[in-house]
């Protein structure tokens, strides 16, 4: 139909092939125009930048990533020394950001869910405590909260020489929490392998149990079996590996504790700050999700004879999750991006290290571009995962 109309119009104009009154031509014209403007503005900005930089003979390009960084970093998941390159230093920062983001997301989800459910509790005291928490925490800027948590460690903890020693081998002081860790042994790798194996077996058991229940109606204790597998396999590997018990216990030597593992005050402050702050928002998200499920659904489930646990797991939660997941994704993204506040309290995150780098090299534009690119990648990663999950739990409409 449409193409016929177009042909007629074209015919009436005596074969003139370009007219803005033709919807197809118009659409193409405006799209080309918009793309052209975007490209032109982008080109102008890049050109202008390079022009400005070269006039002031400021170095450009990413060659600096290969150069020696020669600055120290307080904590790192991978081996790092000032001899390494700026590129590796940046990687350390990215990993530190990921570390605090991932642990923060998990903890904030747990805390947020508990508080969100607590706000709906019929117990007056619990509900009010949860409400107070949410209202206070989400109305104070996160930066101030970070300073607060950091000050708690540096001002209220004892100096390192008078460290608290609540459990043998565990030391708590202004320098952080030092805990003993098992001495390196091949058995830890074998246990990790056993755990992975257990998870794979558990997935198969789960699938088999589901088909069997669908076929015969007989339930299978999948939860208990999974627990048995996940605990049992690594345990067998541990015992088979000779059950090593040697511990690397932290000891006060010179200025600091040596050995063991440490949770630094900076990491503690950024993790606690972000968790507590984001959990307040997640609590509201969870509450809204649960409230969104009609009470009739619960009544209907009870009427079918489902106990309260199953009602929650099989009826309420699947429906609540559809409401919860999209705003939850935003909160995860917020937490990740807020981790850039770490700079203020000295946690060596990506922004902190990139800032040091661009200061030593003077290449602010490259540095900022790398920061933006990394956050964009991390955020898109979270988005893609959460969108996939959202699709998976979406109500299948028949």
């Amino acid at each position, binding site marked *: 139909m449409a193409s016929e109309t177009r042909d007629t119009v074209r015919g009436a104009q005596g074969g003139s092939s370009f007219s803005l009154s033709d919807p197809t031509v118009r659409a193409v014209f405006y799209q080309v125009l918009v793309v052209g403007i975007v490209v032109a503005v982008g080109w102008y900005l890049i050109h202008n930048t390079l022009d400005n930089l070269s006039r002031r*003979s400021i170095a450009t390009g990413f060659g600096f990533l290969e150069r020696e960084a020669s600055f*120290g970093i*307080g904590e790192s998941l991978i081996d790092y020394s000032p001899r390494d390159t700026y590129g590796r230093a940046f990687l350390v920062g990215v990993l530190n950001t990921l570390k605090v983001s991932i642990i923060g997301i998990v903890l904030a989800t747990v805390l947020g869910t508990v508080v969100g459910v607590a706000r709906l509790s019929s117990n007056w005291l619990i509900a009010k405590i949860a409400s107070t928490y949410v209202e206070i925490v989400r109305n104070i800027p996160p930066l101030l909260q970070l300073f607060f948590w950091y000050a708690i460690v540096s001002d209220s903890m004892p100096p*390192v020489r008078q460290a608290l020693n609540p459990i043998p081998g565990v030391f708590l002081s202004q320098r952080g929490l030092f805990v003993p860790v098992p001495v390196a042994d091949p058995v830890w790798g074998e246990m990790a392998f056993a755990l992975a194996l257990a998870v794979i077996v558990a997935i198969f058991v789960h699938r088999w149990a589901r088909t069997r229940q669908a076929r015969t109606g007989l339930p299978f204790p999948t939860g208990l079996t999974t627990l048995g597998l996940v605990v049992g396999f690594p345990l067998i590997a541990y015992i088979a590996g000779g059950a090593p018990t040697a511990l690397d216990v932290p000891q006060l030597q010179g200025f600091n504790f*040596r050995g063991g593992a440490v949770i630094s005050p900076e990491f503690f402050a950024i993790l606690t700050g972000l968790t507590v702050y984001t959990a307040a928002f997640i609590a509201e998200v969870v509450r809204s999700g649960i409230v969104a499920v009609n009470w009739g659904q619960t009544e209907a489930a009870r009427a079918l004879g489902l106990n309260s646990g199953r009602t929650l797991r099989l009826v309420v939660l699947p429906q609540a999750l559809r409401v919860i997941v999209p705003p939850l994704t935003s909160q995860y993204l917020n937490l990740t991006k807020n981790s850039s506040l770490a700079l203020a309290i000295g946690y060596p995150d990506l922004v902190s290290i990139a800032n040091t780098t661009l200061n030593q090299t003077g290449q602010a534009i490259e540095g900022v571009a790398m920061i933006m690119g990394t956050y964009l990648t991390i955020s898109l990663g979270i988005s893609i995962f959460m969108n996939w999950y959202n699709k998976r739990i979406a109500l299948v409409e028949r």
Partner: protein
Amino acid sequence: MKSGLFAAAAAALVFGAVTTAQAGPTLDAVKGRGFVQCGVNAGLPGFGNPDSAGNWTGLDVDYCRAVATALFNDPTKVKFTPLSAQQRFPAIQSGEVDLLSRNTTVTLTRDTSVGLNFAPVTYYDGQGFMVNKKLGVKSAKELNGATVCVQSGTTTELNLADYFRTNNMSYNPVVIESNDEVNAAFFAGRCDVLTTDASGLAGTRAGVAPVPDDYVILPEIISKEPLAPAVRHGDDQWLDIVTWVVYASIQAEESGINSKNVDEFLNTKNPEIQRLLGVSPGMGKALGLDEKWAYNVIKKVGNYGEIFDRNVGPKTPLKLERGLNALWTNGGLQYAMPVR
């Protein structure tokens, strides 16, 4: 807020038109505007620090005033922009400030790829360490394994790494952006050691420490930190002006001219002083300034010795000796090129 300013400065490089790249544009821009935009330290006693009445004080601040005086015969024609160590380079690169007078160490990288040109050194400094007396540390060589508080984005951070590396010692850095937070962390006990320029340590001990006598500055000076005002590449005239304002202040001290006696020297027979004070004209014109430029600077801001004594000298809380900053005639390094 801080990172906002920093981002704005970086954005200016991206979006900004090239307003400062023609010949001598900074002087014209500053004259047209009526004041000098000067980037200074946000809170370093003795160098760049607002006093209790909100007036900016410090050696670096006085050099901003000196430049303004050379241009406008008025030391108040300055707009001070407090900058963190991180913000300072984007701010000068993008043209947000005309002059960076913020205890900035002259280095090859900064002179080249960062795009700065340095005026003469106004303060010869070196990096030192401060520790709590209770630790009983007498030398920086005993600091193996120490936790060190350091401000990010400084040469300090690099010297620290180099020093521990050279001496085969390990350390644990706590790197914080804001100077105030670094000091707070150190005085709370988060770190064993605070490191920055020795002058900065003296300022911090005098002005920030809860009990100054509890802290001791270790004898080792681990680096050369020549601090100098900087301008951006591409404007030679502006660099010349800043350079010769610094030299004029040093030359004045060398010739015994200060803010109190400068008028007596107007009748001098000494041709060198006549040229400096504009009694015999030519120097001002060469710089594109009024012939009285140096006279005004000496009269209203003072000579190098006065600026030093007023801000960091023995009678100030910092109690710094002249040391390397004495005139060359007194065994120091301050040496003015001839004004002719």
